[in-house]
């Protein structure tokens, strides 16, 4: 549900950039971590609804989900952790430290060129 607010903020940034670059935005690439995920379908739906009749109408969202990583305290392996089955991918140990999660960011925008 918080995707609506994400969509609104996203559209504001894209619209601002469209004006600065004086070009029509075509795709926006965003990425998020594991502890601050967005639901792709809900975000696209919300974005489409808000963007209608604005310069952002028709912009395609490319959404990348970045895995959170953890460091095993037994064997020092740094691995992509599956939080539903939290254990070291190498030794199976369950004593580990979570690494910082990737933030929810707008990475780049592609604009149409004449």
């Amino acid at each position, binding site marked *: *549900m*918080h995707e*609506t*607010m*994400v969509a609104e*903020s*996203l559209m*504001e*940034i894209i619209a601002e*950039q469209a004006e600065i*670059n004086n*070009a029509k935005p*075509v795709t926006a690439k*965003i990425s998020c971590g*594991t*502890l*601050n*995920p967005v639901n792709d379908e809900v975000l696209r739906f919300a974005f489409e609804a808000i963007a209608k009749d604005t310069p952002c109408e028709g912009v395609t969202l490319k959404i990348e989900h970045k895995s959170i990583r953890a460091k095993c305290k037994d064997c020092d392996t740094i691995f992509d952790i599956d*939080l*539903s089955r*939290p254990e070291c991918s190498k030794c199976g140990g*369950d004593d*580990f*430290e*979570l690494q910082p999660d990737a*933030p*929810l*960011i*707008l*990475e*780049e*925008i*592609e*604009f*149409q*060129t004449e």
Partner: protein
Amino acid sequence: MKKVDINKKILGENEKFALENLFFFTKQKKICLNIISSPGSGKTTILTKTINELKGKIKIGVIEGDIQTDIDAERIRATEAPAVQINTEGACHLSAVQINDALKQLPVEDLDLIFIENVGNLVCPSAFELGESGKIVVLSVPEGDDKPAKYPAIFAKSKALLINKIDLLDGGQVDFDIEKAKADARRLNKDIEIFPISARRGDGMDRWCDWLVNQVEKSAQ
């Protein structure tokens, strides 16, 4: 096609207000705890019992977040603690700007501790920083011991976990493996403080209240 690098936080606007709130709390030497849970886990009961238990020791104010009604703020005011109600009108979480506004309506100088009771929801509120000193997650035993595994984000980000309604474990009224819930939460967050409590009956409330007093003393130094 022309590619332009942006690399901007999408919720940056929220984070701007969150930082402002954080500076405010730090400057005023106040503790602010953001309470997050599913609806019906007992957040408001925990708060009213905590306020009563700590009367004369620390002064508490509350920012209440709900989709609608001021039922919760009224329950807090009945304890004589100041409360501000925010109605999100459909939104599933509180935002930092709403806290910024609510703080102007609380007598912050007279308080030691400010609780924010977030909208009942174990998912969305964890994505919105409010500038709080820490998040407290509440899990009540009827919800099941699988919640830390199913909703890892909030357990990974919280300073403390309150396992509420433990009175229901008596006589096996509810199947809930408390050791499993604790172990799953600690696996995600080794520093999380865990308090099994029954706000209704009073179990474990003294340890939780001592911890709060300790947090307040630390921030005032």
